[in-house]
């Protein structure tokens, strides 16, 4: 859509504001605009739910849940990724 209204959130701004939203850090006017965008945007609604699921899953993760081989593999992947940056 081309006719953007002055107070309207777009998807990119939802991505930027999502952490503040989840931590209840958005002032009420911004939170209202954020949620009004969710009403009309299924993609952003799904994104929010995925973030919530990730937070729930990460909250239950513990280092000792990983087998030594899995932990070594994760460390290797992280090092590879960091070297490529």
């Amino acid at each position: 859509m081309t006719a953007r209204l002055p107070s309207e959130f777009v998807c990119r701004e939802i991505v930027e504001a999502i952490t503040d939203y989840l931590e209840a850090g958005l002032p009420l006017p911004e939170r209202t605009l954020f949620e009004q965008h969710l009403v009309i945007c299924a993609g952003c609604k799904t994104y929010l739910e995925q973030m919530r699921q990730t937070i729930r899953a990460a909250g239950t993760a513990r280092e000792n849940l990983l087998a030594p081989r899995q932990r070594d593999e994760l460390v290797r992947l992280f090092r590879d990724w960091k070297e490529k940056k």
Partner: protein
Amino acid sequence: MIAFKWLARGAVAPFTGVRWPLADWVSAPAGGPEGSGVHACRIAHLPWWLDEELWRVELDGSVIEHETQLEARRGRLLDRVTSWDPDAFAQACAARAAALAAEFATSELAEYAALARNGGAATAAYVAAVASVAARGTEAFAAERAWQAQWLALTLGLRES
């Protein structure tokens, strides 16, 4: 105060995921900041928050009036507005966008009309309001939302009290 509340299927709050019980009071956490209360709508607010289920709610205590919603410390569901038909509302909104496209005959408005025709209730309502801005200017957005609220009130037989 009697107001209205949109919920997702199964009486679930769309943003918090909280399932509202039938008839029991739901309270906001004590001492929370502005905006953390129980939210509901006047009829004029309804087009902003469309969802699958529409309920009549009772709000208790002092009610804060925000631009597009009400906020109270607690509320409870009274009954569901079973006449809510999202497809009928979407068609009504799409017809408004189509009328603008026919009147002004621009490619932008034709695009909006197509989007409204192919969207659900929330999308069709929003696109129709944006189309009205493209056709008539920024003030038309509020006027289109007001028309949508009036449609909901008349078609669903809603009354505030």
